[in-house]
């Protein structure tokens, strides 16, 4: 039996097409004959399988994204400068990320 599964743009959540039988990626284009077949299938009263939803990123993943914006060498440099100058730039930067992305 033919199956159609909706597919989403994972970044916008917008439906962008359907996947037929797990193989054929069909766009929502009225000129595409596979899409026309899908519309006929819908008209027969069939329902597509819901789309896979991308999992929400965890707090650790979101923080890691921010941490990775500075290289390890750059962070060592910040710590060295803080030690020499008596500043807290590296700790402040870390605290800022933790405050912006609190644990859930």
């Amino acid at each position, binding site marked *: 039996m033919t199956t159609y*599964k909706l*597919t*989403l*743009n*994972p*970044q916008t959540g917008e439906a*962008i*097409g*359907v*996947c037929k039988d*797990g*193989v*054929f*990626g*069909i*766009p929502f*284009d009225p*000129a*595409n*004959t*596979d899409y026309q077949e899908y519309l006929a299938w819908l008209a027969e009263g069939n329902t597509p399988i819901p*789309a*896979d939803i*991308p*999992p929400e*990123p965890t707090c650790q*993943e*979101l923080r*890691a*994204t921010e941490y*990775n914006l500075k290289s*390890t060498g750059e962070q060592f440099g910040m710590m060295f400068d803080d030690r020499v100058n008596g500043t807290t730039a590296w700790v402040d930067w870390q605290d800022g990320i933790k405050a912006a992305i609190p644990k859930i």
Partner: protein
Amino acid sequence: MAASLDGTNGLTFNDNTRMGTANSLGTRNILFNADFRINQRAYVSAATLAAGAYGHDRFKAGASGGDYSFTQLASSTQVTIASGKSLIQVVEDKNVVGGSYVLSWTGTALARVGVNSATPSGTFVVSPLLITGQTAGTTMSVEFNAGTLNTAQLELGTVATPFERRPIGLELALCQRYYYKEPASAYHMAILDGSADFPSAFVYHPVEMRATPTTVFESLLRFDYNSGSASANFTPSGGTTAYVGNARLGVSRKNSISNAPASSNAQRNGQWDVQLSFSTEL
């Protein structure tokens, strides 16, 4: 006499070939791959070809299937359509100017046509076949039944002219508007986005396709990317395919892979060894 000109046959050359109208000049044949030189899907001689499935480029099986046999040549290749089977080619509406057409071919197969977007119907007849009443901007379909077939030509006018032989590069480009398959192990610029479950491969089609194409992942191989401190890779598996793109530039995506690397939410660039095929067949 080198040539003659009269009001009935138009221009007749000394080898008895004729030009019936000025339409005989230039690109005449609106059938593509009509001498079976291009076989991107690698259809195997005498294999089962289910109704609606494609064999050589632009030719699909009729309602009862389309099995046929052949010995592939570099030049024109005759095919033999099996008993009870048929092959159909649908001509895109944008290539149909309307009026009278003539269909000619070599071989023992018989043909029938469907005009004005209809599927072929009626009695199969011998070559040449005169077609009238075709409306501009609607599809035409030709269907060949059991027998041998080669050098089919569908052209404007009422007089069948010699088969138009096009360069292989041109013929391939004409076919790629409707279907093409990448070489095996083709590297694509690619990204991992979101939670790294959704790798996308960027594609630039060799010619503008008829519509936004249906995409198939023919093979799924390694995705190489930089993890931030070192290179890494994984091989996607499972999940389903999806596609977003347009007729010229596509971004193909394989959704919800089952073994994505654990990672941060950062988007990563890489290269993806994947073979894709694209179809906008009619």
